[in-house]
């Protein structure tokens, strides 16, 4: 039985590698030549020439693009040995466009070498978690950059193996130095010797180690192990980097200085003008926008969302991977250069976290549900049965009206989302065209039609699920999903912060005018959302708003004048919307926090005071632990509101807004946008509903609202 399971597991791993092979092969053969590929091919060719000539001392002086260490380039050079010799690729500056005249066979060989490492990486991750391996196998950004002549595939593999062996070592012999620790150290060295940035895993491992040691004690032994691991890693790094041997300090220094100068001065970095959060934008899009034919499909944005959902579970189950993800994200956030290939540094933990996300929101609830059904006691079933008969007279009329007014519209929506229904085909649709097409399509009588977006045909056509892809591409290209989530997170965070601080200040003993302040602060909550939005438009509207008028009168030196011209910069309009959005939302959070504070037992505060705790300690150890279980449902509710926020974006009319705004504007038959696209609007709504399911699951978990024991 055990053997069978092992075989099954191996089979799954091989399957994952097969999928990874298929996706990477397609990318290897179809991807256009990218920036930098000529550089690293040239570097590889130089090493090939050295090996062929037999003058191995050449290794000491050769490292084209010395800002990156040489090991990965040497590997690429070795793999070129079997190919016939070709003239050396010419030297171009880093800012030059992609060199389209590379030797094809060499290009192919080195791409394949990289891709093989990419496939093994996916297989390795599948050993940790098969689902995670599968996600990595189809993660489009990873596919792109491990299938080109880049320096990503080898360090990505080595860094994963480094963590992998560290985890195995931790599981088996926590204290002694063993083979797995040596392996981990060796691959740490290989990682750093391939590309410095990937050395982030080292930091993640160190933090993990430190957390363990802080919990368990035994610093001396831990320190010895860390020292051994770090020194061995450094030695391997040095060993695999022959270019450093003649002048270690000088050349290392040189390459580090290069990076800081590059980030600040290079023309291609400056021209790109990426905002600070650009890496999150990359995460929420996919390389399909550049070359769709190189990939079968892309679910990168979904993987990113799932990863966010699964981060907590990942922390509990695989802490070091969670640390890896968090530290790498933080590093990419502050690192001034924002190339998308840097995502490969974290794609392995990202996919692991995403698989935990799937587990949390999908697999675990289903498993629990099945267990609950199995474990149900007979008496309960009997009671339910008897009550079922009593409930029937109430249920039947209730269900009928609920179905007609709520469920049917949603199902209708689902049907519309499978067609190309739009304002031109409205006549056909009203005459039953939607049912005809959807029924025919599902039963296979009607072929999936090919329609181009925006849809303008006179008759309804069945498009099936192929409708979702262009909409999804649109959403990720326009960054709607990303902005929507960024907006939700930021606005709720700020609302909570302001609401909580206000509530705490008002809660202090002896604050004057308590009631007056509270009644004043409730105002934004009581004002209908649309009116509030208009009030803020009245202040911020370009040219005619209060702010602009004040600037005309008092000149540019007045306070808040830096907010002028916000409509030209994405970061600024987000700030303006946040100012307005927080205004709506913070009173609700304040009230929720106040209600929570009132429920707290007075005794614990008295006890704290007697024990001599200061304000900060009281908050940290008493107020917050008691308050946050009450606050989290409020935060989730505000999160849902912010996610669905409609009027604010509609009133300001900037960007594409949230999913709800976009859906409205796609739908509106007389709008100025791409109007009357009923089907597209339906698809967006379905996506919204799916995301909201996640919110509601979260809410249920935190509030136990589904238990039926709510407020009396």
């Amino acid at each position, binding site marked *: 039985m055990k053997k069978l399971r092992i075989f099954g597991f191996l089979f799954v791993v091989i399957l994952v590698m097969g999928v990874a092979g298929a996706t990477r092969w397609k990318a290897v053969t179809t991807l256009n030549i990218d920036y930098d590929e000529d550089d690293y091919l040239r570097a590889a060719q130089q090493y090939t020439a050295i090996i062929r000539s037999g003058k191995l001392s050449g290794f000491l002086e050769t490292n084209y693009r010395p800002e990156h260490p040489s090991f990965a380039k040497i590997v690429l050079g070795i793999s070129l040995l079997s190919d016939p010799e070709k003239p050396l690729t010419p030297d171009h500056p880093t800012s030059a466009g992609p060199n389209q005249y590379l030797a094809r066979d060499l290009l192919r060989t080195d791409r394949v070498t990289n891709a093989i490492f990419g496939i093994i990486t996916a297989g390795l991750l599948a050993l940790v978690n098969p689902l995670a391996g599968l996600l990595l196998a189809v993660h489009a950004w990873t596919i792109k950059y491990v299938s080109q002549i880049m320096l990503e595939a080898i360090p990505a593999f080595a860094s994963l193996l480094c963590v992998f062996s560290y985890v195995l070592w931790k599981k088996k012999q926590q204290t002694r130095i063993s083979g797995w620790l040596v392996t981990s150290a060796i691959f740490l060295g290989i990682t750093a010797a391939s590309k410095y940035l990937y050395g982030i895993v080292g930091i993640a491992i160190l933090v993990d180690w430190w957390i363990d040691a802080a919990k368990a004690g035994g610093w001396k032994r831990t320190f010895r192990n860390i020292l051994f691991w770090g020194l061995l890693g450094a030695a391997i790094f040095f060993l695999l980097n022959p270019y450093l041997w003649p002048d270690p300090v000088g050349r290392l220094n040189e390459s580090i200085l290069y990076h800081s100068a590059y980030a600040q001065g290079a023309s291609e970095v400056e021209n790109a003008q990426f905002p600070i959060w650009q890496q999150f934008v990359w995460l929420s899009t996919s390389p399909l926008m550049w070359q769709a034919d190189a990939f079968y499909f892309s679910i990168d944005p979904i993987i990113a969302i799932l990863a966010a959902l699964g981060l907590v579970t990942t922390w509990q189950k695989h802490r070091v991977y969670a640390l890896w993800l968090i530290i790498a994200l933080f590093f990419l956030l502050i690192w001034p250069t924002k190339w998308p290939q840097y995502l490969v540094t974290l794609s392995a933990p990202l996919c692991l976290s995403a698989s935990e996300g799937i587990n949390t929101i999908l697999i675990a609830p289903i498993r629990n549900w099945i267990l609950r059904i199995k474990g149900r006691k007979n008496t309960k079933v009997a009671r339910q049965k008897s009550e079922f008969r009593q409930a029937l007279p109430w249920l039947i009329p*209730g269900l009928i009206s609920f179905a007609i007014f709520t469920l049917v519209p949603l199902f209708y929506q689902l049907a519309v989302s499978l067609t190309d229904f739009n304002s031109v085909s409205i006549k056909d649709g009203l005459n039953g065209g939607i049912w005809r097409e959807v029924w025919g399509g599902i039963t296979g009588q009607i072929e999936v039609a090919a329609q181009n977006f925006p849809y303008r045909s006179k008759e309804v056509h069945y498009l099936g699920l192929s409708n979702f892809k262009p909409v999804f591409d649109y959403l990720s290209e326009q960054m709607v999903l990303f902005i929507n989530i960024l907006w939700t997170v930021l606005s709720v965070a700020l609302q909570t912060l302001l609401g909580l601080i206000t509530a705490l200040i008002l809660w202090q003993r002896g604050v004057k005018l308590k009631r007056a302040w509270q009644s*004043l602060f409730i105002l934004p909550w009581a*004002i*209908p959302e649309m009116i509030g939005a208009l009030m803020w438009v009245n202040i911020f509207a370009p040219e005619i708003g209060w702010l602009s008028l004040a600037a005309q009168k008092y000149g540019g030196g007045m306070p808040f004048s830096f907010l002028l011209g916000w409509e030209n910069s994405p970061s600024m309009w987000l700030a303006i919307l946040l100012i307005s959005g927080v205004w709506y939302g913070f009173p609700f959070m304040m009230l929720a926090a106040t209600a929570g504070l009132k429920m707290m037992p007075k005794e614990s505060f008295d006890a704290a005071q007697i024990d001599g705790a200061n304000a900060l300690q009281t908050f940290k150890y008493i107020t917050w632990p008691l308050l946050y279980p009450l606050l989290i*449902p409020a935060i989730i509710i505000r999160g849902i509101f912010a996610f669905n926020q409609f009027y604010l974006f509609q009133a300001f009319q900037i960007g594409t807004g949230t999913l709800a705004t976009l859906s409205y504007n796609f739908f509106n038959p007389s709008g100025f946008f791409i109007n009357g696209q009923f089907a597209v609007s339906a698809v967006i709504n379905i996506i919204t509903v799916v995301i909201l399911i996640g919110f509601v699951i979260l809410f249920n978990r935190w509030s136990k609202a*589904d238990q039926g024991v709510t407020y009396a």
Partner: protein
Amino acid sequence: MRKYLWVRQILSQLFLIIVGIYVILPIWGMLRLAFDGSLLSRPTEFRFFPKVFSLGPLFSVLDRPYQSVHFATLLKNSLVVSLGAALLALVLGASLAYAFARFHFPGRKPGLFILLLTAVIPPIAFATPLYIVLSILQIRTSLLGLTIVYAVFAIPFCIWNMRAAFQSVPRELEEAAFLDGAGYLSTFRYVTLPLALPSIAIAALISFLMAYSEFAIGWLFVDKAQTVTLSMAIYAMVQSGNAQPWSILGSLVVIMSIPVIVIFAIFQRTLLERMLFGALDS
């Protein structure tokens, strides 16, 4: 120690003043517009107070604010639609709410989940199919159609709230009524319903407010000035730009918001609880 308390008081008040300014500023901006009698179109210069203080705009709003439609018509439309939607949501939701509150039956938990989900789905997701269905029924552009649309937005939330209301009625009271020989329906009618009525009223109030302040989606369903509601009139005015003095817009906003603000001020705590879907209890 006393000195320290004073510092704390001053710092707290300072913080509260800053937040207060943040809260008041946009409201003041609108009030200033509402009472400025000098405006002919959009404001052209910065003023903190109205140039000419006047109640004129307020009165002209009460006459005919939008496209020669009387204020009374707008208000009537708003009230008909909002009250109708609230009533419809209550009637349609009551029996399901009672079933969920009182009985255990198979599928109850998934049912509650779906209920909660439908309560948080944005209204636009319901509007699409309703637009088509109501077009087929040829009542899309009538007040009845609008009432149905707003009722649909409110039903899930209403059911959720009424369920809580029914749950708060002690089961023992109902059982006592049974023992005295009352049937299901008369128990509901004479025992449960009267006791739950205050909470149900809150559910109705929230449904009313939803419909009363909604404009954008209703805008899709309206094609003539005679069926426009108050909040839609505001939106229409914003879209028409500078055709009218902005003081009219401001006045309409003030008039429309005052009843809502009063309701929120009175029912603060209850409304908060309802909007949290009962999560505050524990």
